[in-house]
């Protein structure tokens, strides 16, 4: 069952997702070229390991995705990295919501005000027709993709944290978790200070 899913996803990834993801990057770049303080555009086709890990997620004792190929919506992901926190708001309002049709928007923050971890603005968007059209296998192309808007510090933390999560099978121990939270807190603080400095310079 698992090997069949791996094989199906690998085929989908190689034949479609990788190409759509590449074209999506070009499309976003063409639309965003006049926006200032955009540090980078990243797109990716979800890796096979990451897809399978997500497909196997258990929620309250039940397998979360019964039909992962059709249910997992971030098989294609895009991330826009900007300098400051206020740029996240600007890109959200003046770019993403203007040029894309979204079906979901959430600001992801840790569960408790006393915790530090992942921060970011997330959207689930319809894949633009400009990107889908022309693929031989258009019918198997995903309908949706995930778009994240991050500051430089959120991006750096997210990348390192993601890398650590896939380093091995073992869970992080208590001290390691505290260290990860510490780096998130530092990134959060740096964003806050840079935003203040940026606003100060603008006034």
């Amino acid at each position, binding site marked *: 069952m698992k090997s069949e899913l791996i094989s199906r996803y690998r085929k989908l990834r190689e034949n479609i997702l990788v190409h759509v993801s590449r074209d999506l990057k070009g499309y976003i770049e063409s*639309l965003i070229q*006049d926006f200032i303080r955009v540090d980078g555009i990243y797109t990716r086709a979800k890796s096979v390991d990451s897809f399978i890990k997500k497909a196997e997620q258990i929620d309250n004792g039940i397998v979360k995705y019964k*039909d992962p190929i*059709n*249910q997992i919506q971030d098989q294609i992901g895009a991330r826009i990295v900007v300098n400051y926190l206020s740029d996240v708001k600007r890109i959200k309002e003046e770019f993403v919501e*203007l*040029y*894309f*049709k*979204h*079906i*979901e*928007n*959430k600001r992801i923050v840790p569960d408790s005000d006393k915790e530090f971890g992942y921060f970011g603005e997330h959207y*689930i968007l*319809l894949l*633009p*027709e*400009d990107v889908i*059209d022309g693929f031989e296998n258009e019918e198997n192309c*995903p*309908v*949706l993709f995930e778009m994240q808007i991050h500051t430089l510090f959120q991006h750096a933390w997210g990348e390192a944290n993601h890398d650590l999560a896939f380093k091995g099978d073992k869970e992080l121990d208590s001290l390691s978790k505290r260290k990860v939270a510490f780096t998130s807190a530092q990134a959060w603080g740096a964003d806050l200070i840079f935003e203040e400095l940026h606003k100060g310079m603008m006034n």
Partner: protein
Amino acid sequence: MRVDQIFCYLVHPEKGLDEDKREEVKSTVIKPNNPRLFRLLSIAFEKADYECKHEIAFSPMEDGRQSNDCRNEIIDFVENPDELVGAYLAKRLQSVTTNKSGLGLLFLVLGENRGKKRLYMARFPADIGILAEEEQGNLNIVFVEKVFMRNALAYKAALYEGASTDRDFWIGSAVDKQISDGVREISNYWIRDFLLSELRTTPALGTRRLAIALREAANITDDSGIKSELISAAVLARGLDGQFLSIEEFADRYGFSDKTKEVVLTQLKLPRFAHTQFQFSLEEYTKNIPYKMVEIDNGAALLATVEKFDDCFSTEVVEGVDNVFIFSTTGKIVNQQLRKSK
């Protein structure tokens, strides 16, 4: 393509009515043993791809959550096609129907197309008519108020198709055959209020496509007639803010010649973008066509914002010489530049 089931619901106007005055939704199943009606709806089901020309997409909840009550009801119906389940859609339509829209018949036609579930929804308005029946040598005339489909071409419809209710059914298409002036009405009652959807193409994206096509077409052509048509339209387009249109309709509205239309449409990445409906955004338009420039054969180039060009430069024809003009402008110098490009 195959029709499996057809359900029919009588939908009263209910928006703004007190709870005690609301009507229950009455329904019935249309079976193949009602061949004329079944056939008529089957044809509409098959032709829906051509009829429903406005691409729409469901909207999220106001707080951004990925949920849409209308989509949920559609998915419930597609997964459990039943008269009672379909009644939720009819109740939704009833709750947003005003007296202006009036009484209507909602048909839910469910079937399959190339292995995909296909749902066609159509609302026909009530009309009036006269029933004339010959009986034992007499003629009986009855005035009837609940006549539907008197004009089978006047209806609102929506079409959804998909293989997976998880992955698909986010995008659909719709049409309103009861109005002739674009999609403003359809977007309010049928698309926004009932289907909880918006046009798939955002105002900014649609306007950007139009503006870039006009700009590129004007830059690419050497034909002065085409350039002139494009520039006139580009200036007049500033009055379109908020209006719904497609690029093809834009070309027709400003009377583009066939060759001008062709130059514009060939600038589009996909031919079907010519028919895509969107709401014109002046803000986006101005971002993409901010300036008008006139280049003269003596080496001069006159540049001003599109909306101010004709105020900035007055043009006078030089008598006796073809296509030669005197341009004049008056003002203080506020800046001078050396530029690499025009």
